[in-house]
């Protein structure tokens, strides 16, 4: 988020609504209204003095209205922009009185004369990402939300769990502010129900977020009892199955598969009674301290208005109507969609959908890329490395945040007594634009070569102050920040004197370190503009095409002799896409594209290099080729498990779901004429060997069932399942199949169906399936003509090999491991290498395409530049000190260090491009030969030595000598 606020190419228009959109792709005219926040954005520094003095208290929206906030406030602590706004509860706005905030603001940032402002902007393309709205359980009285005080929604509970929440991270009941010890969750609130006010689709995220909340509840209170009333548990995502098991295995957590109703509230204890049914004991009632409603995801409340303004179509659930293939485009060219408006999706899909939208816009607007982008120009840097350290200290009042607690003028005087400090002054707000300018001027005027700003956390403002040094022609690594706000004034509000003393200590340490700082160069690495795409399935082709359409050469490497991957075995999707026609069209575009080079029957024999500069050797039908490229996309897809169970391979009437699809499409007689067909789900996964859900098989089986029912409505179709995981809109097809009399029978993993060849009463050879029906509570025998197995999706056989070549990691299930599950789902920890498709995890075709565009979008953020900047804070080896023991090499997971033979034996050498600056190697090196620049032993030890002022150490030593 912080990055957005600082990016020179992004202008954030917060508190702003869109009025109208005119024009067409490449040339939209948008009218916006900026709502008055009664705060001058460029003057407010976010010091929150006004908030303290504001007399109005009203329910805080950020905390789900459980706690109170002020009429003037910052939405939440990490808000961007980090400035206040005044809302309609303000006394002045309502009754024309008060104006206290105006009086207390030292920066004159309050302006009650603001009025709504109309803004017109011209843009070439639009992305709609208005997000989702949590389902409001008030629309259904039976949930008793708002009626029983201890019935809360999962969003409320989320805030209760949070340390920034209403009770500071304590889970408390609103009724008596006591910890609930016995909490129940009710799943599918507002989801999977065809009733007035509910949604028929599955909200896709609630099963897993409930598990998260149960785990966190146990973290808060190890004795807590958690009960989860659920329908199917839909742990379809990457690592979700393991997460489910982790939750289930915690003591005191119960999962009940049952419909429930909330019956009553105890008038005294305010406990809530839930009625549910169990297979063994029938209907039961149980009392809980708190009931959490796991609410689903709704489209934004104003979605119809959005649709009208932007001229886009919605589907029957009021989410954006999506293309069957490309889930990012809307019916109006130039307007794209990402995130929750695509449907109920989890965070990673939102993230790669966003990157995907960015790539598709790149294709549309490539001709104007860079025209409006800004770059900053700095004065040339002076070499001051030979000079004595001349430190300047700037102590910030942060309005009243620091100044009210810490005696700033006295601290400034103290700074002047510190060694090497040649200048010190105070500032009201060091981060204000005029203050930054003042620092630049003082550097020049006083000849400063080191700067310490004593203010807040470096996390937010270090980049700004580094910039300030660059403006003055000083190397930015000569900057050091002393945090006397978060680490001091905010936590010692009642101990002003001690806080002032602590400020001295913190600044003294920073000054000591500043004296040791060295100038570092961030170096530019050239970026080769070409991309390598490994894998020629839908994921690889989509991503190659998107990059090529933005002017980048793409080398597409396919191990088979044809493009298409596993999709060649798929004929339609549940939504009705003709997959083969789509594939032909896509492959055609690939072959015709002048910038795409296809290598089939290809294997990669070697991959060398680093971000922007890879060299990969490919052996293919074209011979051996050495390809130079700046980025690589891993899209090697996945394979299908070959079952060994249920007579597969022994009886030709037993087949996989994909083989069944093939036979349905080709009109195979045996399949077409079958009287009875059984599908068995979860074959080869959700077990000990493969502890994950293959995500797509439930829908694959339902798709086949619907195809068969269409051709032969009389066919008896049974689907034997563990959980039906038709998440999102796919739930509609589950319902359709059930309504067409496809019979769903649940089985337990410890009591799997049995299959044997037999003869039915008429003497016809059949496959006899025996299964326990848990609803009826008895064993069933089904005579089937055909059995289709939902075989697991398994990682490609070459996964390990590719991972080794490109030095990227794998997840426990053998799929590739992304850099961050939620926030960087299409990248690897290794820079310049991206990931998409089933190589990441099993997924549907539209999801694959979404992610493939996402990988292209992320790759473009690299390829669109001529150079990539590598940080100056990397490791370096003092060769003389290195004894060649290799301790650093085993500590480095990035493979950035290697041993090289020299005349003085083996010596470690760091490749600065691969080094990420974590410094783990430093702590392992026996001789101190390897050192992380900007965090060297000298720098850190000087800081440690300065913790205690020198005089005090001497005193202590004297005292110690006295002891003896």
């Amino acid at each position, binding site marked *: *988020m912080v990055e957005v606020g600082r990016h020179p190419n992004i202008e954030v228009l917060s508190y702003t609504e869109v009025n109208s959109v005119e024009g067409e792709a490449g040339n939209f005219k948008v009218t916006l209204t900026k709502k008055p926040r009664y705060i001058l954005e460029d003057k407010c520094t976010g010091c929150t003095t006004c908030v303290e003095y504001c007399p109005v208290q009203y329910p805080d929206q950020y905390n789900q209205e459980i706690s109170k906030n002020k009429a003037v406030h910052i939405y939440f602590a990490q808000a961007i922009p980090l400035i206040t706004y005044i809302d309609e509860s303000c006394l002045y706005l309502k009754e024309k009185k008060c104006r206290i905030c105006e009086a207390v603001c030292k920066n004159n940032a309050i302006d009650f004369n603001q009025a709504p402002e109309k803004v017109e902007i011209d843009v070439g393309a639009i992305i709609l990402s208005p997000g989702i709205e949590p389902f409001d359980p008030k629309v259904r009285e039976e949930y008793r939300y708002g009626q029983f005080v201890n019935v809360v929604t999962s969003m409320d509970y989320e805030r209760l769990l949070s340390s920034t929440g209403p009770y500071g991270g304590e889970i408390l009941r609103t009724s008596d502010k006591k910890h609930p010890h016995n909490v129940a969750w009710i799943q599918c609130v507002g989801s999977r129900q065809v009733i007035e006010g509910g949604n028929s689709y599955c909200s896709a995220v609630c099963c897993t977020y409930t598990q998260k909340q149960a785990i966190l509840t146990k973290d808060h209170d190890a004795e807590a009892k958690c009960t989860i009333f659920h329908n199917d548990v839909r742990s379809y995502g990457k690592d979700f199955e393991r997460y489910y098991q982790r939750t289930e295995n915690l003591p005191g957590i119960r999962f009940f598969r049952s419909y429930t109703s909330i019956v009553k509230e105890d008038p005294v204890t305010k406990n809530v009674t839930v009625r549910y049914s169990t297979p063994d004991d029938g209907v039961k009632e149980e009392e809980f301290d708190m009931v959490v409603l796991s609410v689903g995801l709704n489209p934004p409340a104003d979605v119809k208005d959005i649709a009208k303004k932007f001229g886009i179509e919605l589907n029957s659930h009021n989410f954006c109507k999506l293309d069957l293939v490309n889930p990012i485009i809307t019916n109006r060219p130039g307007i794209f969609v990402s995130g929750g408006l695509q449907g109920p999706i989890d965070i990673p899909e939102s993230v790669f959908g966003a990157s995907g939208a960015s790539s598709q816009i790149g294709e549309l607007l490539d001709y104007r890329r860079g025209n409006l982008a800004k770059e900053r120009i700095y004065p040339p840097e002076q070499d001051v490395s030979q000079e004595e350290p001349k430190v300047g200290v700037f102590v910030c009042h942060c309005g009243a945040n620091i100044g009210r607690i810490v005696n700033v003028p006295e601290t400034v005087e103290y700074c002047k007594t510190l060694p090497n400090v040649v200048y010190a002054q105070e500032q009201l707000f060091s981060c204000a634009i005029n203050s930054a300018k003042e620092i630049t001027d003082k550097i020049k005027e006083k000849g400063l070569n080191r700067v310490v700003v004593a203010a807040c956390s470096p996390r937010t403002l270090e980049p700004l102050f580094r910039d300030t040094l660059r403006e003055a022609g000083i190397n930015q690594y000569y900057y050091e920040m002393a945090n006397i706000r978060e680490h001091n004034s905010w936590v010692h509000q009642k101990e002003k004197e001690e806080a002032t003393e602590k400020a001295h200590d913190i600044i003294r340490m920073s000054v000591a370190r500043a004296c040791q700082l060295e100038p570092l160069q961030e170096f530019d690495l050239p970026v080769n503009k070409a991309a390598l795409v490994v894998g020629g399935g839908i994921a690889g082709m989509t991503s190659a095409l998107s990059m090529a359409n933005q002017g980048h050469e793409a080398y597409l490497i396919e191990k088979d002799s044809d493009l298409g991957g596993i999709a060649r075995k798929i004929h339609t999707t549940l939504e009705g896409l003709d997959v083969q026609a789509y594939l032909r069209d896509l492959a055609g575009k690939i072959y015709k594209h002048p910038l795409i080079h296809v290598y089939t029957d290809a294997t990669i024999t070697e991959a060398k290099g680093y971000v922007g500069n890879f060299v990969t050797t490919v052996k293919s039908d074209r011979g051996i080729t050495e390809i130079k490229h700046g980025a690589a996309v891993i899209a090697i897809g996945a394979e299908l498990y070959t079952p060994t169970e249920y007579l597969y391979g022994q009886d030709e009437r037993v087949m996989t779901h994909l083989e069944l699809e093939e036979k349905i499409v080709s009109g195979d007689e045996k399949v077409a004429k079958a009287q009875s067909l059984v599908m068995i789900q979860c074959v080869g996964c959700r077990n000990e060997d493969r502890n994950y859900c293959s995500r797509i098989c439930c829908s694959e089986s339902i798709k086949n069932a619907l195809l068969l029912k269409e051709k032969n409505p009389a066919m008896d179709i049974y689907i034997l399942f563990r959980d039906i995981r038709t998440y999102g809109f796919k739930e509609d097809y589950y319902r359709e199949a059930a309504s067409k009399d496809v019979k769903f029978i649940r089985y337990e993993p410890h009591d799997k169906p049995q299959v044997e060849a037999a003869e039915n009463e008429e003497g016809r050879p059949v496959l006899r399936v025996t299964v326990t029906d848990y609803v009826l509570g008895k064993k069933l025998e089904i005579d089937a003509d055909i059995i289709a197995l939902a075989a697991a999706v398994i990682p490609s056989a070459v996964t390990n090999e590719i991972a080794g070549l490109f030095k990227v990691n794998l997840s426990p299930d053998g799929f590739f491991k992304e850099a961050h599950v939620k926030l960087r789902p299409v990248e690897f920890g290794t820079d310049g290498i991206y990931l998409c498709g089933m190589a990441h995890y099993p997924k549907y075709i539209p999801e694959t395409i979404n992610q493939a565009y996402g990988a292209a979008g992320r790759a473009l953020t690299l390829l669109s530049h001529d150079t990539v900047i590598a940080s100056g804070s990397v490791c370096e080896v003092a060769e003389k000190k290195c004894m060649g023991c290799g301790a650093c090499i085993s500590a480095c997971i990035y493979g950035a260090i290697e041993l090289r033979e020299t005349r003085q034996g083996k010596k470690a050498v760091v490749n600065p491009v691969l080094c990420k600056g974590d410094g783990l190697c430093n702590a392992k090196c026996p001789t101190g030969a390897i050192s992380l620049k900007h965090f060297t032993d000298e720098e850190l030890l000087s800081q440690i030595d300065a913790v205690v002022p020198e005089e005090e150490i001497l005193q202590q030593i004297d005292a110690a000598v006295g002891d003896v």
Partner: protein
Amino acid sequence: MENVISLKENIQQLRKNPGDGNFGDVMVVGGGISGIQASLDLAAAGFKVYLVEKAPTIGGHMAQLDKTFPTNDCST
């Protein structure tokens, strides 16, 4: 193609005209996690972005979440 060229000239024209600062490449509507990611990617890929958010801050619903599954990482 002609369209494209005229548009390019149009942009250059606009760039020369300092009075009109409201010309961007892309407008992103909604400053949740998806909108933020899209804005960052577009900006990094060389486009000027307007990120329009109706709330007083960007962040969306994710900023309200305590942790995220399956890694239980914090979300802000």
